[in-house]
């Protein structure tokens, strides 16, 4: 199967991030690993592109970030750990409903045989 990347992912990254954050808080790299694991190796996300999505979600109040004071055994700058807010939980639930509806309608058309 061909990897899913670029335009196919555009517009879905934010919902996917909300979804993996529902399992628990995490920093950028951790979120990315969860996404890759959930995508069974077929998701090809440019890693830098995760951050604009995180910042947009943060600006919208769907996630909040706190700075991890002492990242265990890691050198360099302290990491920011992201967590879903109440508003984020609601937005995720709404996005899931919309997605289910989208798959039902579009899947019915695309998946239909002649």
């Amino acid at each position, binding site marked *: 199967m061909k990897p899913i990347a670029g335009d196919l992912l555009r517009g879905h990254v934010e919902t996917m991030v909300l979804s993996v954050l529902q399992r628990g808080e995490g920093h950028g*790299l951790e979120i990315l690993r969860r996404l890759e694991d959930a995508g069974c190796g077929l998701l090809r996300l440019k*890693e*830098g592109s995760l*951050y*604009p999505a995180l910042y947009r979600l943060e600006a919208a109040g769907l996630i909040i970030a706190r700075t991890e004071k002492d990242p265990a055994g890691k050198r360099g700058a302290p990491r920011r750990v992201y967590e879903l807010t109440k508003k984020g939980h609601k937005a995720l639930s709404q996005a899931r409903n919309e997605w289910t509806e989208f798959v039902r309608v579009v899947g019915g058309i695309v998946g239909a045989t002649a």
Partner: protein
Amino acid sequence: MNPNGINPDAMNPEIERQLKITVERAVRPLKTWDNRKYEIRRELLGHLTAIYQEELTRCGDEHAALSVARSRFGATEELTQELQRGVPRIPRWAAWLNEVFRIDVAISPRQNAWRWTMFWFCELFFLFGACDLVVILKGMNPWPMIVTLLTPLVMLTLIAYVVLEGTFGAILNGSEDRIYWRIIRCTCYKLGALGFIYKLLLSSQMIPLWERFGAREALLVVLSTVMLPVVFLIVMWAGRKEFSSQVEWARLDLSEE
């Protein structure tokens, strides 16, 4: 240690610089607050460093690991666009104003201190001129006592700003050999410019300072003068890490491969 004898946690300074250049290519063109840019830099650098170390552990070759880490990170131009799209309107406008009026501490490496000072002088001249015009057009008569009390404070604040800007401007200019001369020169030019503007305001009778200058005002001036170096030192001390880090980022040459 990996099988090739490289310790991924002991970062080669040249590789570290290359990672910073990659991050800076994405962040420098952003139009937002400087503090926000600083946070983004730190977070992106943390991520890029982590993937570089992952690749180094895997392949054991520093240059190959750097190349793969950059490729995994993605194109910096696209990242800039994506990041810019998420910047709210107010910081975007503030960054635009900052560019137009160069309120920033940064002085471009090609700009000499004289031209930089003239530019700053013109800015202040028009700014004060605009205030003057508004007051004249509205036929207002500012309450002399308030003006008298506030004037020394405003002037000292401006001078503090000038000294700060001159200092960091000189640091960012990267001329360590004559840095102190540059600071003194910048400061003198600017103080001269301020004096000229002040004189203009006095002659237009906007600031009737000498009519109401009593013991109370003199005490205020003395206290403000004593406070100035204290405040200056506190600001320098509190922001020393961020200032030096910003200088480090500003000095990165992005044209390098």
